[in-house]
């Protein structure tokens, strides 16, 4: 009898010890362990490292929800390249907005050798996902300057919000245009869902395009959400929207911006 209860005690004890962080309070608890404010930290790295560069090259990935193997392989593959300056993730790191999903994906992305930023995807807004995204990555609208190019990263998931929350946020777009004007002469706009997708507030699609074209030398736009590789001139104004495939397709787009040109390449891994 004694043996059995000792045995039970050992099993129980070892399970609990091994599983010190194996207590799950709630799938949407908001209890975040580990790295936070990642975009803020990494933007500083990008801006410091590449301030004097004429040429920058970055990898654009998106929609990695539940594609853990593929995201992990992407990290390994891109870490082997020495020509990528930073990585932009176009959003949807989670499928269900679960805390665990945010943390699992963050822990894979944290293995990247180069700095990265993550945009807010529509799936990341589910339940209290937006609050979790804000804690782990940062604000849903942000910008940074790499070399002489300003990257305007916008939350375009209007379907996930109500009217109390302006999406896209035109006052942010306007303010950013006037901020650090002397530091950039080119602009790239990055978003999760492109205009005319069901997520976008299509009532203001034309106004949106007008407002981003006010930026100095708008080169092109980047988006995810559609899970396909696409290059589309959505507004017939020679501003191309480059849509990157979901990471499950084992593909990403590499963009190179030089002093007076840019190019892109669909890369498989």
């Amino acid at each position, binding site marked *: 009898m004694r043996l059995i209860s000792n045995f039970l005690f050992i099993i129980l004890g070892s399970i609990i010890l091994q599983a010190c962080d194996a207590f799950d309070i709630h799938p949407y608890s908001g209890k975040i362990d580990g790295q936070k404010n990642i975009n803020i930290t990494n933007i500083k790295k990008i801006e410091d490292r590449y301030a004097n560069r004429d040429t920058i090259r970055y990898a654009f990935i998106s929609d990695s929800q539940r594609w853990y193997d593929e995201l992990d392989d992407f990290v390994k593959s891109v870490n082997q390249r020495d020509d990528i300056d930073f990585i932009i993730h176009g959003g949807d790191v989670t499928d*269900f907005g679960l805390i665990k999903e945010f943390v699992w994906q963050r822990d894979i992305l944290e293995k990247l050798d180069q700095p990265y930023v993550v945009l807010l995807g529509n799936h990341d807004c589910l339940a209290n996902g937006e609050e979790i995204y804000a804690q782990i990555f940062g604000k849903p609208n942000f910008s940074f300057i790499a070399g002489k190019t300003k990257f305007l990263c916008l939350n375009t998931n209007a379907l996930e919000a109500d009217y109390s929350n302006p999406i896209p946020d035109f006052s942010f777009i306007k303010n950013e245009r006037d901020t650090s004007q002397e530091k950039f002469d080119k602009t790239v706009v990055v978003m999760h869902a492109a205009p005319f997708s069901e997520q976008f507030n299509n009532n203001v699609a034309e106004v949106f395009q007008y407002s981003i074209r006010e930026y100095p030398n708008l080169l092109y736009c980047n988006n995810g959400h559609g899970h396909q590789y696409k290059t589309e001139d959505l507004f017939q104004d020679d501003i191309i929207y480059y849509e990157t495939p979901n990471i499950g397709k084992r593909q990403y787009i590499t963009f190179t911006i030089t002093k007076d040109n840019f190019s892109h390449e669909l890369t498989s891994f």
Partner: protein
Amino acid sequence: MNLHLSKKLKITFSFILCLCMVFPAVAQNFDTASNTTSERSRNNFLPTSAVAQFAGSIGLVSLGAGWDYGKDDKWATELLIGFVPKYNTDRNKITITLRQVYTPWSISLSHKSTYHPLRTGTYLSTTVGKQFWFSAPEKYPEKYYTFSTKLRMNIFIGQDFALKLNSKKLPLDRIRIYYDIHTSDLYLISGATNRYLKATDYLSVALGLKFNFK
């Protein structure tokens, strides 16, 4: 919209009804704790146990009532209310859980203690709050989000250890300490579809105490 709302109301209403039935019953059971088993069996809608749990994907702490039945109380149906602190979010959350427990075997360790090498079952849990929905609101295109953020289906497997009390003052017959290893529908979907995530990523541990009334 109306249809959707009425469905929501119905579910909310049935939960409130359940709660209204359980809580006076728990209180009443303490009042009549000196009743004999035969008297109690006549009022068999009354809970026969109380449960306190730590973790389990239903809150930091959950409290509830249980109905134990079958030979050697092999079966139990439990209703728990869980509390989730706000942590890094704006609000605290409350969960409501309905759990079915099956404890097939008991091994007597002494005249006072019993070991149950297996307890297993399933529980449905729902989280209160308008940011969680049973099915995606109508603003979304059809089949846009095909899961519920409000309703989780969980499964568990665990063990317990029961101690018989001979207290004349307490209305308690025995105390059980248990642990469950559990997971939910969304964790399983996340974990099973890739090689990267390991079982320890999506299996978690819950600890609990169960108080069986006299």
